[in-house]
């Protein structure tokens, strides 16, 4: 009886561990990795490899490829196995996040040594293709990503100058940079080229997949805040730029109107002159025909005939007889 009870107890334990606690499911926004006695299941035949996204320091970040359990279930695991689930949905994080420090902005020094505050967000997700570092290889992957991201960002800000390379104040009157004179002031360049900075950060952070198993979906630097007095000076530049653009636009419109009017005046004068000479040409053609047809006599006859009405108008005619 006692033996049966003992075996029953053993069975209950096995049923509980294998039958009840042995089943698990994986949600659509999750992936899972199973460990047996602490060892993660590797892809068969796969050895430790460096992810292609890691270009430098490849020797430091070699990880094995793991067998990833896709969403679904129920799946069965043995009591000596453990399931590690990873959320793979995209998540957002303020770049000011730092578990060791409370801060509202990231300080960064620009190329012209101005201390600015930077704010923004990164969007990231755990990389399904390189889960090992995320789960096991790195103690706090997100802190590593942020450390790396902020380092790269600060260096980029310190180096950034507008790629157009326009001079600060500029050049000949004919150069196209007249309303772009504020090029070369780092803070202005940075603000104008935020998309380019974001793109650069995304490129630079491609390696985070291979390093930390985190894929950077987007880097969104939304604010680069200089001190208030610089902001005012920048606003003045902006107002002046608008004013200059408006003045130039008005001057161009006036010029266009005046030039158009003067061109019309030329056309009018030419048309008037053409109108004046049209009878001359026509008469010359007719008289030429008369001369061609009847000779000089015919022309003289025509001229005499033309003068005949003068006699009708004449007050007095002194006629000399032959």
């Amino acid at each position, binding site marked *: 009886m006692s033996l*049966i009870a003992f075996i029953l107890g053993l069975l209950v334990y096995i049923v509980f561990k294998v039958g009840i606690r042995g089943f698990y499911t994986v949600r659509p926004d999750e992936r899972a990795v199973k460990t047996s006695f602490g060892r993660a299941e590797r892809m068969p035949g796969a050895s430790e490899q460096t992810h292609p996204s890691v270009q430098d320091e490849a020797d430091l970040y070699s990880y094995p490829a793991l067998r990833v359990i896709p969403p679904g279930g129920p799946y069965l695991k043995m009591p000596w196995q453990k399931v590690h689930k990873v959320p793979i949905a995209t998540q957002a994080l303020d770049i000011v996040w730092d578990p060791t420090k409370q801060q509202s902005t990231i300080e960064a020094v620009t190329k012209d040594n101005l201390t600015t505050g930077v704010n923004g967000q990164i969007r990231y997700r755990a990389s399904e293709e390189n889960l090992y570092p995320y789960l096991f290889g790195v103690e706090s992957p997100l802190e590593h990503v942020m450390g790396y991201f902020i380092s790269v960002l600060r260096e980029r800000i310190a180096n950034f100058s507008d790629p157009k390379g326009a001079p600060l104040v500029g050049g000949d009157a004919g150069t196209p940079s007249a309303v772009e004179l504020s090029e070369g*002031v780092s803070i202005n360049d940075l603000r104008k080229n935020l998309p380019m900075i974001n793109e650069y950060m995304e490129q630079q952070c491609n390696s985070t997949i291979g390093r930390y198993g985190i894929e950077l979906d987007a880097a969104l630097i939304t604010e680069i805040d200089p001190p208030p007095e610089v902001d005012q000076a920048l606003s003045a530049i902006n107002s002046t730029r608008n004013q200059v653009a408006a003045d130039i636009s008005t001057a161009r419109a006036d010029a266009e109107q005046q030039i158009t009017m003067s061109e019309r005046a030329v056309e009018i004068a030419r048309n008037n002159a053409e109108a004046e000479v049209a009878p001359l040409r026509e008469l010359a053609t007719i008289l030429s025909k008369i001369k061609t047809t009847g000779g000089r006599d015919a*022309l003289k006859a025509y001229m005499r005939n033309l003068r005949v009405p003068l006699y009708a108008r004449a007050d007095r005619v002194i006629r000399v007889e032959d």
Partner: protein
Amino acid sequence: MTPMPFIAFFLGLIVVPIALGLAKRFGIYAVVEEREAQVFTVFGKVLGVLDEPGLNFPMTQLGMRAFLVPFFGKRYRVSTAWKQHYYRKLMVNSEEGTPMGVGIWYEMKVSDPVSYLFVNANPEGSLSANVASSTISTLSNLEMEKMLESRHSLSRTVRAAVSPLSEKWGYRLGSVYIRKVAFTDRSMVDNITEKVVKRLVQVTSAMRQDGENRVGLIQSETAKKVSQKLAEASASRPAVVGETLNQIRQTDPEILDAVLEVMETEKLLSSPAKVEVVPRDSSILIQTSGG
């Protein structure tokens, strides 16, 4: 009713976890997690290290002395995953003498668990101090511009300087980045801000002046073009009429005379002027006064 079956049932429930626990406690088997190393010591000596994740049997790998570990030794668990550390507010002076605050961020992991445990009493603290010292010696007396803009190459220099010592202490240094270079002197920050503001003001006035110049240029070019066009308009009549008369003359001078005579006669006829006809070559006195 005897309680024996209940006791037997309860024993059946707990026998497996207890047996496994005891086996583990006495070192029959060891479960090594991913990125973990277990260092076994006995009688003050290092018996061995298990760092292959999975189920391990210390006695088969480390010898029978592993059996003594639970009684006369110790098992140390060491994480070999990457860790990171951010060292803030290091003070360096640039070549120009500017005091700068530097933050350095670095990654490290345990590469040799035995050295990590026993060579240095505080390896993390020592590593941190070494990184700090190396950073200061690398960055001190650099030009401020270089310090701000060449951070990654400087980071590599720091890493190269620190790595040999860290390896000795069982650490491997990963990426090292100079994460922050900042001005520590508030008045200097204010001065730089003022300089930038002045520069921006200069840009503003240059922009305004440039705008005025461009407007002036547009207006003067316009005046020039308009003047040219108006002159062209004035010259149109002489050009067209003269050209036409020339053409007629080139064709036949007699025709030109005839045309002009016809036009003169027609105008004369259409005008209200008094007409007196005198013969050609006659010499007469013409009285021009009216009435």
